[in-house]
């Protein structure tokens, strides 16, 4: 059923309610007939998509096509944008994430996000990782130690950083900072991780490490990644969605899309003949 959000503040209000139901989120994403407006601008047009669990799904398309906007719908980041209106059905597992019963904090714990530019907090490596768990009430040092080690191991950084846990995260290289941000997202044990061009500011070696990491992570979490790098989409994703001017033009298995796309616009974009 379609639901119209008249005011994005609704989401924030929901998030501050104290007696909200802890929703049993899953790790697949289902969107039906989604539209999004920024004021009068129709940024996403009647999008329906099923994103499978424990797979990497890539969103591709030229700048301004709506792929990052769509990504941010999955953890309601767009709620924070003035004048943003969203309609349609967004489900994670069985949960309608835009329903009044949804705890936005709980949603964002389950749906982590990594951005284009690494954004470690100006604090130690340890405290960066422990920040999320502390926010959600974990206080015991031994428990936090365990979470930090587990998260850094998951992000393939434990051996690199185990002797530098108390050093400032800002002293790490760009690639390390980005992987630290992934580790930080993993610390609260999300079931989905959204990545918005996570390697566009990184060198090829750091990019390779993050791509390898994504491939390992999909055993535990669902990954949705926005990328402008076609080869990256081919290398790491199982499914690809091509967006153009707010439309979802084509969605399917990555290998199929990059060998035999159905739509001429997809063909033209992925072969670099427009965009």
């Amino acid at each position: 059923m379609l639901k119209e959000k008249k005011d994005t503040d609704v989401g924030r209000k929901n998030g501050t309610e104290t007696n909200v139901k802890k929703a049993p989120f899953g790790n697949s994403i289902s969107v039906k007939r989604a539209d999004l407006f920024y004021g009068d601008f129709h940024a996403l047009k009647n999008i329906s998509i099923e994103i499978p669990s424990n797979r990497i799904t890539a969103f591709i398309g030229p700048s301004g096509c709506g792929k990052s906007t769509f990504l941010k719908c999955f953890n309601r980041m767009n709620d924070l944008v003035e004048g943003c209106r969203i309609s349609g059905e967004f489900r994670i597992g069985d949960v309608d994430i835009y329903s009044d019963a949804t705890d936005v904090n709980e949603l964002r714990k389950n749906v982590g996000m990594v951005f284009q530019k690494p954004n470690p907090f100006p604090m130690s490596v340890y405290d960066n990782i422990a920040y999320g768990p502390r926010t959600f009430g974990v206080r015991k040092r031994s428990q936090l130690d365990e979470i930090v080690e587990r998260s850094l191991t998951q992000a393939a950084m434990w051996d690199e950083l185990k002797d530098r846990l108390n050093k400032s995260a800002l002293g790490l290289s760009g690639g390390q900072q980005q992987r630290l941000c992934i580790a930080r997202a993993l610390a609260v044990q999300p079931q989905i991780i959204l990545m918005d061009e996570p390697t566009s500011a990184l060198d090829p070696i750091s990019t390779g490490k993050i791509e390898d990491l994504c491939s390992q992570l999909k055993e535990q979490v669902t990954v949705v990644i926005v990328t402008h790098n076609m080869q990256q989409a081919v290398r790491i994703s199982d499914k690809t969605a091509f967006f153009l001017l707010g439309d979802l033009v084509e969605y399917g298995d990555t290998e199929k899309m990059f060998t035999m796309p159905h739509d001429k616009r997809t063909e033209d974009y992925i072969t670099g003949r427009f965009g």
Partner: protein
Amino acid sequence: MRKIYDTQLKLLKQKMSDMYLRMEQSITDTVECIATGDKKRASEVIARDSEIDLLNEEIQQLCFRLILTEQPVAQDLRTISSAMKMITDMERIGDHAEDICEIIVESKEDGLALDYGHISQMASAVMSMVKDSIQAFVSGDIALCESIGKYDDVVDDLFEKARNDVILLIRHDVKYSEKALDLFTIAKYFERIGDHATNIAEWVIFAITGEHPSLQ
């Protein structure tokens, strides 16, 4: 947008056409040489094989360069990857035409003696397969590709008949055994050319549809 890339892809198609035309000429000449015993023309086919080999090398290098520099996908990927497979089959067809012509040049028999039994029918059928595979490549005609698979069955039947012709020839008089061996070798080369033409048709279908069927 991507003008250099498009120019290189056009160059690839141009070189493929050049190679096809030389291969087609070699097959046409070979079939006529069998009928006429024209050793001079057979020598020209042998000489032409080095041109086909050179084009094979050039196309292969061009494909590697395109993959390395342009990272092709979709239609471009299918065109380039199928081109790399097709040139291998075209090069082998050229080799087999050369092999047949070497037999003609070295044969003590006149041409008509090699145009024996079902071999001329095999030669005609194979020539049609090669010509159709070229036409299918140029026009992107999938139906034509699929008909090449049926030709291949005809060629296989004719090969069996040609083999029986050879057995009968040896039984007739053992002094024909050397000639019989030449005839059998020629028949086998034609049968292989038919297989390569079928492979080409399969890769033409892949280039168009993304599916690689088995036509054999």
